[in-house]
């Protein structure tokens, strides 16, 4: 019995030892596992742990301001008092909003949106209830805050355009970022971040937006911030000065507003500075910085005169007679005709079986280049255009900026069109006719150009043939941007002088088409060229009946164009104008350009001392 017991006891001890051994093995294994996790893989898990606990919060930078060339603000950041509601701190969200309604109006739709946003977010994340409340409203809420649990007021920034519609097409506007506009820049993911949508705001958005600051903070598993670890300050956007003269811009926009639909460009022929670029009708860009109402939006986009478009760069029209300088230079430079070449104008020209009318039915008689420009005789240009050919006319036009985008730093620029034989065949599938060349010679037919291109053309004519390009950005943070040195077009100075003499005669000659629009002050005398573009073909019946163009309905009337420069003695300022359906260049466009050039010369924005006048 005892023997057996000890046998059993020995068996127990033996087997217990095996179990103990297994235990020792397991303990070793667990310690090894800890060693693997805590020593070998330490770095991996350390990183993961930091990823868990550290959250980056972005601090929005203040958007750079935009001023005109003299420092007049065009786009600023106004105080924007915003009311926030933190659901977690409010006893009852509905009650709180109800109490809040005593101080600020909250529509039912807004209230619904607030409730939807509250549901989507974590309860400690504040929800914006209302923005851009007045100082008075803010003060009242501030006083009542102890009774408004969960409500807080915070000051943000709201973009404001103090000159409103006068600079709408230049500044453009900012609006809430769309899905497609989100980039790697962390700023684009900021809630409520507004991005430049059009105009300078868009072209220079990267410079204006600045850099976001970062606050690294420790968060818990539910995303609540526990403490701040470190922060980088945000870098505000840079201040842009444009080449625009704000007061001239206001004047220009107001003058354009006298026409139903018109656009104008005023620029410097020597350095390319755009002093004013106007388009009427315009709109108030401040509508877009807040939420634009659907009615307002519908009104803007359904307006027949397209107020959102900057017609000075996006509107394409046949240049009409303003193109005649190019035809003349093409003929002269290629030696097709000499400066004394004359043509007899009986009121029409015949090429083969086709008859092309001069605008003056009675004809101009014998005309040379200068007098043909002065009176805008079509027959003279029909003749030299036919002799020169479309190829050479097109080449000359391109040198003066036609047929392609100029490349101004504004959105929506159109390229215009300088037709070639190949273009017509490719596009319309028809052969180029002699008649096509003839009408191109007077800037009609397929040729299309923008008001900006006409201003560039005129600048290159009067600056001695330098391929100047327009610029709109003058300086960044007060440091002037470099003016590009442009190449010379290599046009014979004598030929240029001839053309300029013609443009002078338009304004001062006895038969000049725009002589009535010449400025009174001799010092300010200007040169120019009118242009009248058919919108609808004049029928034989109309011609016979002598129906005047201004009697037709607005949409059928001719477009009126004008390009001009001043002062005659020392040409510098250039102005180009389009008055849609303005009947005639001399009747509506020339007086408009005259007013603009007069104001430009009075203000003389090119003079560095003229800023004193402004202030």
């Amino acid at each position, binding site marked *: 019995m005892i023997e*057996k017991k000890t*046998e*059993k*006891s020995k*068996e*127990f*001890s033996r*087997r*217990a030892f*095996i*179990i*103990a051994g297994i*235990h*020792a093995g*397991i*303990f070793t294994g*667990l*310690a090894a*596992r*800890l*060693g693997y*996790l*805590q*020593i070998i*893989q*330490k770095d*991996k*898990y*350390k990183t*993961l*742990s*930091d990823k*868990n*606990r550290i959250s980056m919060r972005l601090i929005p930078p203040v958007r750079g301001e935009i001023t005109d060339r003299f420092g007049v603000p065009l786009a600023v950041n106004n105080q924007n008092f915003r009311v926030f509601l933190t659901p977690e701190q409010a006893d009852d969200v509905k009650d709180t909003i109800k109490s809040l309604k005593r101080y600020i109006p909250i529509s039912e739709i807004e209230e619904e949106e607030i409730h939807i946003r509250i549901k989507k977010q974590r309860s400690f994340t504040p929800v914006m209830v209302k923005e851009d409340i007045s100082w008075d409203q803010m003060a009242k809420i501030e006083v009542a805050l102890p009774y408004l649990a969960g409500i807080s007021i915070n000051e943000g920034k709201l973009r404001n355009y103090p000159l409103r519609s006068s600079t709408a097409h230049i500044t453009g506007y900012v609006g809430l970022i769309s899905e497609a506009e989100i980039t790697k820049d962390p700023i684009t993911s900021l809630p409520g971040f507004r991005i430049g949508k059009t105009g300078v705001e868009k072209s220079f958005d990267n410079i204006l937006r600045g850099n976001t600051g970062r606050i690294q903070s*420790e*968060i*818990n*598993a*539910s995303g609540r911030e*526990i403490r701040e670890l470190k922060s980088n300050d945000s870098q505000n956007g840079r201040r842009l000065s444009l080449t625009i003269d704000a007061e001239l811009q206001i004047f220009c926009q107001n003058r354009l507003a006298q026409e139903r639909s018109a656009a104008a460009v005023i620029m410097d022929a020597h350095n390319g500075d755009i002093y004013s670029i106007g388009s009427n009708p315009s709109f108030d860009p401040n509508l877009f910085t807040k939420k634009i109402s659907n009615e307002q939006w519908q009104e803007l986009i359904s307006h027949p005169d397209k107020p959102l478009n900057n017609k000075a760069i996006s509107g394409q029209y046949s240049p009409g007679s303003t193109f005649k300088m190019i035809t003349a230079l093409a003929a002269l430079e290629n030696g097709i005709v000499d400066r004394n070449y004359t043509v007899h104008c009986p009121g029409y020209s015949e090429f083969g079986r086709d008859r092309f009318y001069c605008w003056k039915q009675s004809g101009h008689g014998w005309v040379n280049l200068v007098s043909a420009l002065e009176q805008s005789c079509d027959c003279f240009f029909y003749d030299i255009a036919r002799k020169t050919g479309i190829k050479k006319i097109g080449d000359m036009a391109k040198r003066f900026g036609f047929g392609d985008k100029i490349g101004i730093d504004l959105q929506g620029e159109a390229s215009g069109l300088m037709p070639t034989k190949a273009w017509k065949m490719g596009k319309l599938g028809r052969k180029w006719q002699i008649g096509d060349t003839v009408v191109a010679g007077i800037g009609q037919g397929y040729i299309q150009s923008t008001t900006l291109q006409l201003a560039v053309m005129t600048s290159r004519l009067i600056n001695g043939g330098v391929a100047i390009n327009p610029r709109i950005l003058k300086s960044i943070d007060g440091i002037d941007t470099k003016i590009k040195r442009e190449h010379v077009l290599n046009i014979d100075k004598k030929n240029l002088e001839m053309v300029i003499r013609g443009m002078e005669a338009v304004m001062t000659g006895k038969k000049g088409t725009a002589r009535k629009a010449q400025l009174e002050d001799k010092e300010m005398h200007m040169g120019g060229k009118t242009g009248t573009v058919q919108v609808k073909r004049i029928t034989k019946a109309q011609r016979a009946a002598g129906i005047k163009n201004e009697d037709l309905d607005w949409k059928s009337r001719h477009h009126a164009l004008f390009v001009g420069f001043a002062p005659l003695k020392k040409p510098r300022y250039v102005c180009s104008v389009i008055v849609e359906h303005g009947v005639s260049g001399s009747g509506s466009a020339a007086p408009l350009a005259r007013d603009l050039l007069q104001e430009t010369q009075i203000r003389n924005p090119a003079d560095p001392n003229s800023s004193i006048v402004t202030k």
Partner: protein
Amino acid sequence: MLSYFSKEDMSLSEKFFSLNFVYLFFIILIGAVGFLALYSAANGNLDPWALKHLIRFNLGLCGLLVVAMIDIRLWFKFAYIIYALSLALLVVVEIKGQIGMGAQRWINIGFMNLQPSEIMKVAVVLALARFFHLTPIEDIKKTLFLVRPATIAVLPTALVLIQPDLGTALMILMVTAVIFFVVGVRYWIFGVAIGSAIASLPIIWHLLHDYQKKRVLTFLNPESDPLGSGYHIMQSKIALGSGGVSGKGFLQGTQSHLNFLPEKQTDFIFTLLLEEWGFIGGVSLIILFAIVIFYGMIIAVNMNNRFSKLLVFGLIVNFGLYVFINIAMVTGLIPVVGVPLPMISNGGSAMLSVLFGFGLIMSCFVHKNIRINSKL
């Protein structure tokens, strides 16, 4: 007191002074670690866990002493009754749980929620120790003879499995296996048992609840679902790993204090500790557990009667299983099965069950010279 106590009866003071105080010291040390861990889990507050743990642990210690003072023969006598009562409680929670529309594993007994499955872990060891007390070695070598002790284990296992509580079921089976092993059951039977267990894996898989299946799948590839069911284990590994060699410092664990670590005060308390104390702390804690376990095994081998040997050894193995399963679980070695770290995790039942077990071990130790008359 009781008529069947023989002349070998000891006085209460004799019993008290024959307690193994060294062993008691190590047990208290583990409890103290638990207090520190729960204090940290509440971001350095006594509320809501640390203070309760302290009270419960002290109450448990008193219970341990009472159990230790009770004559080993009484435990022997009531072994089957305790087992039967535990089984009855398991049936009760099963019925109550069904009424309560869910896996209810506990009974509210006023001051705490009692989990009968925790008591069962001790009761099975008691019953088996009693069963094998006088079994001749020849009988043990007979395969059919093992049907009865196997039934003792299978009944509660089945009951906890349908709760469902996979962790407890596995623990009961493993403790039973170890007891079978040390009483001398032939080795080949274990081979057959393990073989048939592997063979029946597909059937078991089929019987598992969806959440259990998911735990197993998540265990196999926790990165597959880092925000869903893989979250626990991923965050636990991050906490452990980021603790490094020396830890982030007491109360400095970011994973646990920022709530990334779920169930940090219960099943994942080991992770919380190691995030703050690092590898050094972890190995120290493992050594502390190892001391308690190996010392317990030495006590078992040195017992003079078979009942005490088996009881002490079974209870120690049971304690060891808690530790192994919990640590393996939080370090990502096995699927999450919901086994707490004894005397450290917040929660009453497991700690009381473990302290009850240590009470019985102490009782064996105190009464090691008393002979058990199997006729009792």
